[in-house]
């Protein structure tokens, strides 16, 4: 860490408070994708966000990474602070700094992220700060190796379509770490992969953030993925955090009725003793009306 500012060092790497995001969905319609999200990520910490589709977890991740659609109708309120510095309403330049230096993002579908006409090596190289320097070539190979790829010199010469799904996802990991970010946000990084490949990619991600001391936000609908990789867990429903706490604690003793129901349905898919359980529509109606206003957030987290 190059920063010596004492105040910055004591502030958490990321503090999000009461974040709300409205997105346009049509010519006149708006949707409240995120209603109230507060979360904290400290240096070197791994944080999970779980939720079902529509919970607002991905929009939250994109907002933190500065990747919301560039549309004047997008409304963001609340606070996103990196090292104590407010970024909601900040200049385009400040956000550019976030995208190019602070935060690396890994998406579910590498093919939409990677440029199909550009060799892998060049795509990694473009993410490296000061990419023109001589050492950049070595750095590309180093990043690819760190991301768990072998024969990296050959991989660097390939195009995205010539790689398997697991290799492409590792290339995304390489691109994310090439900028030496302080935070990596991985949004469903292994959802599209086969189980054996998924396990290897997760292990790589795990080792990479450990080696580099990078903080991690892992976003997924899959509790099993998030549970095994994170220190703390945020559970989202309907654009809100309904429960937060140490991952082991939330998994073992879920407090919010929604977390309990979600866990029960996940368990019912893997445990022969538990009857298949789907969250009943009536329960979701209750959540919509009042349930999501109740939140169980461990003291000191906010």
């Amino acid at each position, binding site marked *: 860490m190059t920063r010596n500012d004492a105040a910055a060092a004591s502030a958490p790497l990321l503090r999000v408070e009461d974040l709300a995001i409205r997105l346009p969905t049509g010519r006149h319609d708006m949707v409240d994708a995120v209603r109230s999200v507060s979360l904290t990520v400290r240096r070197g910490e791994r944080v999970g966000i779980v939720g*079902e*589709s529509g919970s607002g977890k991905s929009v939250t991740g994109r907002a933190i990474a500065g990747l919301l659609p560039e549309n004047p109708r997008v409304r963001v309120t609340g606070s996103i602070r990196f090292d104590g510095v407010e970024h909601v309403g900040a200049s385009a330049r400040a956000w550019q700094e976030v995208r190019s230096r602070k935060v690396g993002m890994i998406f579910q579908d590498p093919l939409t992220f990677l440029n199909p006409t550009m060799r892998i090596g060049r795509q990694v190289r473009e993410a490296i700060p000061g990419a023109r320097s001589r050492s950049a070539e070595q750095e590309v190979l180093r990043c690819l190796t760190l991301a768990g790829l072998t024969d990296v010199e050959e991989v660097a010469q390939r195009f995205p379509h010539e790689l398997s*799904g697991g290799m492409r996802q590792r290339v995304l990991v390489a691109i994310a770490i090439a900028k030496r970010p302080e935070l990596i946000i991985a949004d469903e990084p292994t959802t599209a992969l*086969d*189980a*054996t*490949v*998924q*396990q290897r990619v997760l292990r790589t991600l795990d080792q990479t953030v450990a080696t580099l001391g990078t903080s991690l936000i892992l976003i997924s*609908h*899959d*509790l*099993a*993925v998030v*549970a*095994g990789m994170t220190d703390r867990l945020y559970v989202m429903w309907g654009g809100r955090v309904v429960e937060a706490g140490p991952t*082991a*604690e939330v*998994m*073992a003793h879920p407090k919010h009725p929604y977390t309990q*129901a*979600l*866990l029960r*349905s*996940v*368990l*019912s*898919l*893997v445990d*022969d003793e538990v009857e*298949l*359980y*789907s*969250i009943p529509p009536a329960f979701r109606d209750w959540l919509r009306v009042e349930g999501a206003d109740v939140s169980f957030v461990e003291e000191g987290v906010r």
Partner: protein
Amino acid sequence: MLLEVKQATKSFRGRRGGKPVLAVDRADLRATDGDFVAIVGESGSGKSTLARMLLGLIPATSGAIELDGVDIARMHGAQRAGYRRRVQAVLQDPAGSLNPRKTVRRSIAEIVRLHGLARDRAGIDEMVVDALEMVGLSPAEAFLGRYPNELSGGQRQRVLIARAVVLRPKIIVADEAVSALDASVKAGVLRLMTDLQRDLGLGYVFITHDLPVVKKVADYVYVMQGGRIVEHGPKDRIFASPEHPYTQTLLAASPVLDLAG
């Protein structure tokens, strides 16, 4: 009813004169009504190609797919229509399988009309409503006029199942039918599928890479790798004592939920 794959092979021509790709290699498989048969494998294993062969969407290069002993490639007229009605498909992407410009009512009604199961509007409507209620989209009237974009992922998957069961099929071939769904929705659709198995005597050929789901609902399991069926047997046997090294690898890789903390 017996749907049988006999030494079926499917090869695709290689690109730019390259050597042919053997997607399915001398596969044998048996599925009957009332039975939940699963085919597990990873991407590239040939499982989806085999599913399309079972549905008669692509012909086998050699070998045969037979329904009660009759090769589906040799079926004509009424026989072929009967096969089409009795073996139905539910595929992975409900958004892609439903026409966005057709209401739920129209999507299902046209199938009824196509197979000539009812002639007049009242008769068709009754069948559509019946099918929707059967898959838990109840009250059906609330769903008839909706377009696919007005439905959740789980509801769309249920519409697809309704579109299949309205024909009273014996076997449904489901290719990654629940893979893209959230856990709770997935559990709901699986519950529906097993309920229909019990109530209607439906059989399934369920193609997936999701082993925990297979363990939960299947009766009999085929494991595919590189176009070949490398192991098959009753579910309990496969999970308790997998014999093929690839099956062992798959089982070891399947995600485990640790609640102990």
